[in-house]
């Protein structure tokens, strides 16, 4: 028998997921205020529309809402200013087809000699990973974070993203290898 989420259970769930949700939004929109707004909107939507759902359904519902809220943010941004859209289409991070880490990799290749992993502080590695995640194509980042950070299985990730399981596997594989390559180019061995 499935149990409906009580106030305390919903509170615990939101407290457990809010930081990762903020980071996910931050990777996507690259602005702390906008990321906080996205997390707040997602929390409100979850509580208002699905506050009476069983607890076990909340993680998937919340992720779906979060991803949709991020997508809605992109849409609003496009409507607000056309030039931003044109700029973002040319800049890395929003481009679906090309992998910006490939260009990043070649640019950073010269730095590998004087950037050994053992001299980097832990926070620097984290900073690097954050930066590279921001630069990943949106769908790759989304699939990677849902699959490996939020620990959804392939089918659940596909349901949240609204794509096939095959696409999720492809996105995850590309994202993981692109991140590993980019870090390696900086002298960071995972």
């Amino acid at each position, binding site marked *: 028998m499935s149990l409906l989420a009580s106030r305390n259970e919903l509170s615990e769930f939101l407290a457990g997921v809010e930081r990762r949700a903020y980071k996910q939004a931050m990777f996507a929109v690259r602005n702390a205020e906008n990321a906080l707004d996205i997390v707040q909107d997602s929390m409100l939507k979850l509580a208002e529309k699905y506050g009476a759902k069983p607890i076990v359904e909340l993680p998937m519902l919340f992720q779906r809402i979060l991803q949709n809220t991020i997508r809605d943010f992109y849409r609003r941004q496009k409507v607000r200013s056309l030039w931003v859209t044109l700029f973002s289409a040319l800049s890395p991070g929003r481009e679906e087809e090309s992998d910006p880490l490939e260009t990043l990799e070649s640019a950073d290749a010269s730095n590998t000699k004087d950037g050994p992993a053992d001299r980097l502080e832990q926070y620097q590695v*984290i900073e690097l990973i954050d930066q590279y995640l921001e630069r990943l194509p949106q769908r790759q980042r989304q699939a990677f974070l849902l699959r490996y950070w939020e620990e959804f299985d392939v089918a659940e990730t596909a349901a949240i993203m609204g794509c096939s399981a095959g696409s999720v596997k492809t996105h995850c594989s590309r994202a993981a290898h692109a991140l590993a390559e980019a870090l390696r180019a900086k002298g960071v061995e995972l």
Partner: protein
Amino acid sequence: MNEQQIAYRIKQCLNRGLELDAGKLVRLKAAREQALARQRVESRIPVLAWAGNIIGKSGGPSALVPRVLLPMAVLILGLIAINHWRDSQLAAEIEEIDAAVLTGDLPLDAYLDKGFDAWLKHSSY
């Protein structure tokens, strides 16, 4: 290193990087509390939920009397009246038959005679 191993290491780094400054934590806490204040809670008793739904949809308890209760009362009274009328009709028919049987020329024993019954059926063809 395969995909799973890469993902695992990156996940570890991401989890270590979850420390946020106090301002952001305060904002997230406020967002959480706002969401909890608006949590939708459904009644776990279906009957009460249904009643609440009817009351809510009809515009509150004051609107419930003319919209729901009055038509229901009329319907119930109508059904009682129809039932009473049918009973009285049936009683009248039975009375009529009894009167005809008792006042008829045929003796009552004739109706208990199987042979008479068979003759009636045969003669009706």
